[in-house]
């Protein structure tokens, strides 16, 4: 029997109002245990107010080989950023 418990990724919201952030991984037999292990391993110093755990095999990641095709096309769309546009210095609230 395979006794190695599956790997889980742990995400923690460090305080109300912030996003959950990936902090690491751990092994657990089931989701409930993964949640408690995450609490015991990753919040020993009060690092969090909320925890997500996801079994690692369920995460789909973008392929680094496709990095250029995926992300570079956004480089030349400067018009998506506010600094692209000139407005007179004397105007405020714009």
């Amino acid at each position, binding site marked *: 029997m395979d*006794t190695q418990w599956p790997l889980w990724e742990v995400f923690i919201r460090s305080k109300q109002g912030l996003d959950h952030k990936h902090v690491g991984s751990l092994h657990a*037999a089931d989701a409930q245990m993964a949640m408690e292990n995450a609490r015991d391993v990753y919040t020993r110093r009060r690092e969090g107010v909320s925890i997500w755990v996801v079994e690692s095999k369920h995460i789909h*990641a973008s392929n680094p080989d496709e990095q250029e095709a995926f992300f570079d096309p956004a480089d030349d769309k400067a018009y998506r950023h506010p600094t692209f546009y000139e407005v007179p210095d004397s105007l405020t609230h714009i």
Partner: protein
Amino acid sequence: MVAHPDLQTQFDLRVAEDQRIEPKDWMPEPYRRTLVRQISQHAHSEIVGMLPEGNWITRAPSLRRKAVLLAKVQDEAGHGLYLYSAAETLGTSREQMIDDLHSGKAKYSSIFNYPTLSWADMGVIGWLVDGAAIMNQVPLCRTSYGPYARAMVRICKEESFHQRQGYEIMMTLAKGSEAQRAMAQDALNRWWWPVLMMFGPKDDESPNTALSMQWKIKRFTNDELRQKFVDATVPQAEYLGLNIPDPDLKWNETRGHYDFGPINWDEFWEVVKGNGPCNRQRLEARRKAHEEGAWVREAAAAYANKRKAKSEK
């Protein structure tokens, strides 16, 4: 890895530009192997390192010390876990790494093969062993492999209390009764040289250093770190009124560093080979814990499967 000239160039460029390498990125096989070796060795050191200090949790002389020591040894378990997780992103399972530790294939820091004989050893381990470890670890926060660097950031943050609690124990002993001062000096005498060996063989005898430096897995050489450590530690020992057991130790004005006596490398290699005072006990303790835990891991896995089967019906 001549087979992928483009990928190799891209990789080299990234490392040269201090960019991080992430798990799914292409990397040369030797880089991957070196990382797995170094990170798992580091993880094993944390786990085996729990044992010598764990010896004293049940004998800690005050409730405060007991809680602090337990929290510290527990942190080491956490750090081992972070590091195993980082190594797992390279495609080696924790189970495999643990098997390699138990079979003697994988190494861990030799320092943990020395015995902890008195309470003062808890002080010296925190002060010097963790002090030396921090010297090694702080540069690793910028190591080229992303998951390793991130684990190290977390570890360094948490370890900042470890060295302080050790030094606090030493201060209390140094200010204490004659027997306590003697205990402190004895511990320093026994641990000083093994701690200097922790930085690894001299640079000209360290086979892995050059490549690791080039790949920015390592950022300082063994000798550089060792010197840095001695320079930082001497004044701390003076403050305690303890003598570092090295007659050759003296300030060298021209170098701007402390000179120190020759290290007994024969002893170092013997301990690495498995002939240290506690090598067998340490590995035996780890094997025993793992073997005696097998039924627990199996039961939890079986229960989880039963549950899953039930909910899928």
